[in-house]
């Protein structure tokens, strides 16, 4: 009781705060610590289970919070250690990571510890496919399924692991050195990329993208722009962040001065620190199903914050054991039907309480209340219908014909017919003239248990029946039935409502809520956050879709496309029963009133719903002819599909002028133009990640629905296959190349051997040829010398005639020529056979003087004048070769002297360049017509002048010698002026 009253006080204190104020605001928290029964005042993690209980991990036990009291678990209740650090709720239990020793799984009050992790310290635990995924300090990544664990193969991570975060297919791991972006492929973690982040700490995913803290800054992949705003704000306020957590669209940053919430879309900060009562260090932030935010602190226990856009619930007790079954807001009174009777509660617009409560004398269970006429109420009970007259203050039985029927519902239509729906006998239509007409299965109803009747905008009637079909009675008196074939998958109806646009809203027991408009049913179920599929009422109040479910009061936010669930069990086990049909003003605040087993629930309305809500959703998702349930992030097997998306939209204001546009991200490049078509078809859609988006636009608002899904990649397009295939192809290419290289090497070796063999043979033949040539030359030399000697002897005989003498002279001359030729030929052979002759430093001067001495007679006979200048005195050369070159050049200069002048020969040596020494022999002789003889002047037996004796071997021999020693010859000559032979001698 104390808690409830304190809640009420807190609510009204909260209401004083401006809902859009995002600056420094005075807030008041719920606060529970060890003195209130929390296991310890150090709270490290908070989770909410499927029943609505809040669980808190503390340093000295695990606490369950029901909203009123704590139930604690310790080592004695099965915990492996009292120090609980991390929690993760699953649909069937709660995972607990201990401070030092692994994981426990709590299910139905029993803790089973995961033995395989006993020796591991778990550093992080996150939700993963309805269960959990965790990371140990020793870099072991594991999946949990109840009390069993499955380890995921992980490559060595750099640095000690700190955090793991997931958003479906991606896993981010933060270590003290890196942040790894990973995917899970067949039980093995593959690192896609990694970001160096030494000194980084705390990691969270904001809209699927990781952000983390480094020093006094928030950083993230690709540095999204909103981080700049946070960093600038932290710099300006000298904030030292210690922890960051993304909760839906908000970022919560704990720091030395408390905790700050940043809403990137609103670009607004809100700070909660000492001034708001939160004076302890925040360890964790958690948003529960009602969007209340809870902070676990060090030393201060847990703080609960009713945030500005979250409406709060207040309770007014009507008395022990009474459950509210019907509500009517009429004439500034709230008329409350309960299981015990009728209560009239007067309220004031100016105060925040009901000012008067009157227990009326009707003392039986009430099922429905309706205003009938100016001063009367009709009251449905288990014994028929009563009429309550406000003026007389008495109730009397209405319509004796209806006595003893269990009346579920009353409905007064536009024609003032009263429809009385019963548990067993169908519906009675009481016409204004008193005529009663009974509709049962006998004349067309689907079932005789009718829970609700409403009238559509077209005048037809809709009947909520139990377990058969939704029944429509048209204005023409025909019955229509709607069921599974129409997309209405759940047939146990509990409530109906027709909004301004004529849209019919249907509450079901087990299927959530449906809307029906323009012949299409739209489903609003647990996939959109509805806490339970068992719904007992549906209404549009203050611009919002409201429904009582078995576990909460659900409010659908058309902007976010999600339900917010109020009154989960941890706020005190509440069973909702009835909803008021119109808001009431209470304490200058518009409230919605709901009935429950605890009394009345007051829910303040909110300004954010003033915009006309509009909503769109898929009605069918047909994959190659087969209808599928469009579950977010579903993955289809690899194939090429024909996809059909059917969608529909709803607007509270008007659903007739809605326009749709859609796109299939991953396939379409842009949105299609808006139109009224509500079907999209695609064919040949292959592997990839896709998001089907459909946007509905109304008069002044729009809503976008997103359905992410993927089609699996065929194995031959997977990266593994491409890697293996590339490697295989590479191996083949390598082997072919290798084979060719080996073959070429073998061929090369064969050819080299062949060349060596042929060279050897050629050398041998060449040698033999030279030997033969030399032998021939040598053998010829003696006979020629003999001929010459005999010729000389013949000259000694004096009895020769003149003719004989002339013949003898000719013989002598010929033998001289032959002898000379043979000698030169022998010299040439000597030079050629002397290719590897010894090289030594040879003096030009010495060589020159030696030549002069050998031809001194000729020089004297021809009056030859020499000029010499040996700038380079010597060269490393074979002496015989050098002598032969110079000798032949000098003798040629004398031999081919000009008849008009004495021969003048200049001999010079100089450095040509780094490689050559040039030896020039210049004469003033006959010269050579280079145009005529330039090409063949170095050929053997080539002669350019016939008037003197010569063999045509000299120049050839010079060229052979020079080339053999790596040099070359330049000739500059002009007929009748002389020649210059430049011999380029290769330096050794």
């Amino acid at each position, binding site marked *: 009781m104390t808690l409830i009253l304190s809640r009420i006080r807190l609510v009204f204190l909260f209401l004083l705060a401006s809902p859009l104020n995002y600056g420094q605001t005075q807030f008041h928290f719920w606060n529970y610590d060890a003195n209130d029964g929390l296991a310890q005042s*150090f709270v490290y993690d908070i989770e909410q289970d499927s029943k609505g209980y809040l669980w808190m991990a503390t340093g*000295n036990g695990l606490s369950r919070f029901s909203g009123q009291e704590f139930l604690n678990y310790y080592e004695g209740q099965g915990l492996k250690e*009292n120090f609980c650090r991390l929690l993760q709720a699953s649909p069937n239990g709660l995972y607990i990571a201990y401070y030092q020793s692994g994981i426990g799984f709590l299910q139905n009050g029993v803790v089973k510890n995961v033995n395989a992790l006993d020796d591991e310290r778990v550093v992080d635990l996150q939700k993963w496919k309805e269960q959990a995924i965790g990371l140990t300090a020793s870099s072991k990544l594991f999946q949990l399924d109840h009390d069993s664990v499955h380890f995921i193969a992980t490559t060595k991570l750099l640095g000690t692991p700190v955090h793991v975060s997931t958003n479906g297919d991606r896993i981010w791991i933060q270590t003290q050195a890196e942040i790894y972006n990973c995917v899970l492929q067949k039980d093995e973690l593959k690192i896609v990329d990694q970001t160096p982040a030494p000194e980084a700490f705390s990691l969270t995913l904001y809209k699927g993208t990781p952000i983390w803290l480094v020093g006094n800054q928030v950083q993230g992949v690709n540095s999204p722009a909103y981080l700049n705003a946070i960093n600038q704000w932290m710099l300006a306020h000298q904030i030292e962040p210690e922890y960051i957590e993304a909760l839906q669209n908000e970022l919560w940053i704990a720091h030395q001065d408390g905790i700050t919430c940043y809403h990137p879309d609103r670009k607004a900060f809100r700070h909660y620190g000492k001034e708001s009562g939160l004076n*302890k*260090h925040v360890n964790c932030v958690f948003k529960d199903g009602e969007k209340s935010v809870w902070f676990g602190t*060090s*030393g201060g226990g847990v703080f609960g914050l009713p945030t500005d856009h979250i409406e709060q619930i207040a309770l007014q007790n009507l008395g022990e054991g009474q459950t509210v079954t019907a509500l009517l807001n009429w004439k500034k009174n709230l008329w409350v039907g309960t299981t015990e009777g009728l209560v009239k509660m007067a309220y004031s617009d100016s105060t925040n309480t009901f000012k008067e409560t009157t227990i009326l004398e009707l003392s039986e269970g009430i099922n429905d209340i309706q205003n009938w006429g100016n001063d009367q109420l009709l009251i449905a009970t288990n014994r028929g219908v009563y009429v309550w007259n406000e003026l007389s203050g008495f109730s009397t039985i209405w319509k004796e014909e209806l006595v003893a029927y269990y009346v579920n519902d009353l409905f007064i239509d536009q024609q003032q017919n009263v429809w009385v729906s019963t548990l067993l006998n169908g519906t009675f239509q009481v016409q204004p003239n008193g005529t009663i007409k009974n509709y049962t299965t006998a004349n067309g109803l689907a079932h005789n248990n009718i829970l609700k009747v409403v009238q559509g905008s077209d005048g037809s009637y809709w009947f909520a029946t139990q377990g058969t079909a939704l029944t429509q009675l048209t204005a023409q008196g025909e019955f229509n039935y709607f069921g599974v074939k129409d997309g209405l998958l759940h047939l146990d109806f509990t409530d109906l409502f027709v909004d301004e646009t004529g849209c019919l809203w249907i509450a079901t027991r087990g299927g959530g809520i449906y809307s029906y408009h323009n012949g299409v049913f739209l489903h609003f179920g647990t996939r959109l956050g509805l806490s339970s599929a068992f719904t007992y009422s549906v209404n549009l109040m203050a611009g919002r879709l409201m429904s009582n479910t078995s576990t909460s009061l659900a409010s659908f936010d058309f902007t976010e496309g999600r339900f917010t669930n109020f009154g989960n069990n941890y706020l005190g086990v509440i069973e909702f029963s009835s909803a008021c049909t119109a808001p009431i003003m209470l304490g200058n605040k518009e409230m919605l009133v709901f009935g429950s087993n605890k009394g009345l629930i007051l829910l303040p309305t909110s300004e954010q719903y003033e915009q006309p809500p509009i909503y769109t959703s898929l009605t069918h998702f047909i994959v190659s002819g087969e209808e599928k349930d469009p579950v977010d992030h579903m993955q289809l097997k690899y194939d090429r599909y024909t996809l059909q998306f059917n969608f529909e939209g709803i607007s509270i204001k008007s659903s007739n002028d809605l326009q749709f546009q859609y796109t299939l991200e991953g396939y379409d490049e842009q949105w299609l133009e808006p139109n009224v078509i509500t079907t999209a078809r695609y064919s040949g859609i292959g592997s990839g990640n896709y998001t089907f988006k459909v946007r509905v636009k109304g008069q002044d608002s729009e809503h976008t629905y997103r359905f992410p899904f993927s089609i699996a990649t065929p194995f031959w397009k997977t990266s593994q296959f491409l890697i293996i295939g590339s490697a295989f192809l590479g191996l083949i290419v390598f082997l072919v190349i290798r084979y060719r290289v080996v073959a070429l090497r073998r061929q090369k070796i064969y050819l080299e051997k062949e060349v060596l063999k042929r060279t050897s043979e050629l050398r041998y033949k060449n040698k033999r040829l030279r030997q033969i040539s030399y032998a021939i030359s040598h053998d010829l030399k003696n006979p020629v010398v003999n001929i010459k000697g005999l010729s000389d002897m013949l000259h000694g005989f004096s009895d020769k005639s003149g003719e004989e003498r002339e013949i003898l002279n000719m013989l002598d001359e010929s033998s001289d020529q032959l002898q000379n030729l043979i000698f030169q030929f022998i010299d040439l052979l000597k030079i050629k056979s002397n290719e590897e002759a010894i090289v030594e430093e040879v003096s030009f001067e010495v060589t020159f003087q030696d030549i002069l001495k050998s031809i001194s007679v000729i020089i004297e006979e021809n009056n030859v004048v020499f000029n010499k200048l040996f700038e380079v005195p010597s060269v490393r050369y074979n002496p015989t070769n050098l002598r032969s070159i110079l000798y032949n050049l000098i003798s040629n200069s004398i031999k081919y002297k000009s008849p008009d002048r004495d021969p003048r020969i200049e001999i010079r040596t100089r450095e040509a360049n780094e490689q050559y020494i040039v030896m020039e022999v210049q004469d003033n002789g006959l010269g050579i017509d280079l145009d005529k003889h330039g090409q063949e002047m170095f050929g053997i037996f080539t002669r350019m002048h016939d008037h003197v004796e010569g063999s045509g071997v000299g120049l050839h021999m010079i060229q052979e010698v020079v080339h053999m020693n790596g040099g070359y010859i330049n000739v500059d000559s002009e007929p009748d002026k002389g020649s210059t032979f430049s011999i380029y001698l290769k330096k050794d």
Partner: protein
Amino acid sequence: MPWERGCSIRRAQMERQLIVLLALIFLGGKVNAQEVPSKVEGLSHLVTFSKGASGVWGDDDHVQTFFFLIPKTYQKEFYIHIYDPDVGGAIDQKNGSFNSKTKFSVYGGNGSYSEKDARAITPRGNYKSGTFLRGKTFGNDPQYDNKWYALGPFNPLEGEYVEQYGGYAFKIIAEGLNGDDGNLYRYFLSKEKEERKEIEGGTAFTFEYSFRLKYTAGSVAHLYPFIDDKVVSLQQSNFDFDQDGEILVYSVKKNGHVMAKSKDGNWSTGTLPIKEEEKSKSLDVRIVKSSNSDNDMVVYMVNQYNEPVPFFASPLGGAVQYSYRNKILPQKKSGK
């Protein structure tokens, strides 16, 4: 049975020793054991040089490990305050220009104290054992200069329970990272974040002490190694004292025992026999300075098993006093 009797005697002895030790700790804790260096130690600052600094500056290994002990009766949050945690400003030792960083890391949980490497005199092996709880790296950050910075809060249960001391141990490692300057700082174990308020019974100790002596000649620093009942002899080592005075040991049985003193950048070692009366008590190692200078040095002690001996921020069991054989106490000087 004799064996059972022997066991019960040993158990009784152990229990007595534990009670004595706990009593010593809690009594000692009242003597301002929350600040390191404590007032009674008479040291200037703790000191940790960055990795690039030579040993001649007075720090042999660029790491200083301290343990804070929280009695198990204390169940609220606490903080470890660090005075002048940055490496810059007037207090710290500049080597050229300030270019250094110091990382302070707090560890708790299993192994943070019990791991042998954690208590070694050099940073070796798994000396960062346990669970990393909080840490922060400081560079030349003027906003922290000459100010206290609070690391925390910590839950006492996050520490490692040490039966011997009846409390939870937390390890703080000051690690000189890149750079070559000296970080001079102090610690304070506090129950508050904004103020330094002592925790009843809390204390601090280290196994290798790196500190700066007070500047003035004649100043006396006191170190308080605790001698447990298994110690027979101690080996004392000091580093980079520059032979700037004397190192003397006082106890109930030692009245100024002269210890070996080190030169600039060198170690010096000496052995100290322990008598029965000195066990379960603290020694008072007095370092008497002979010159006006900034002198940073390192001291550690090991017992005959080469096990490091803890230096407590305040002497366990109160002030150390020589027990004169003839019971004549030194005469007090009269004020007249």
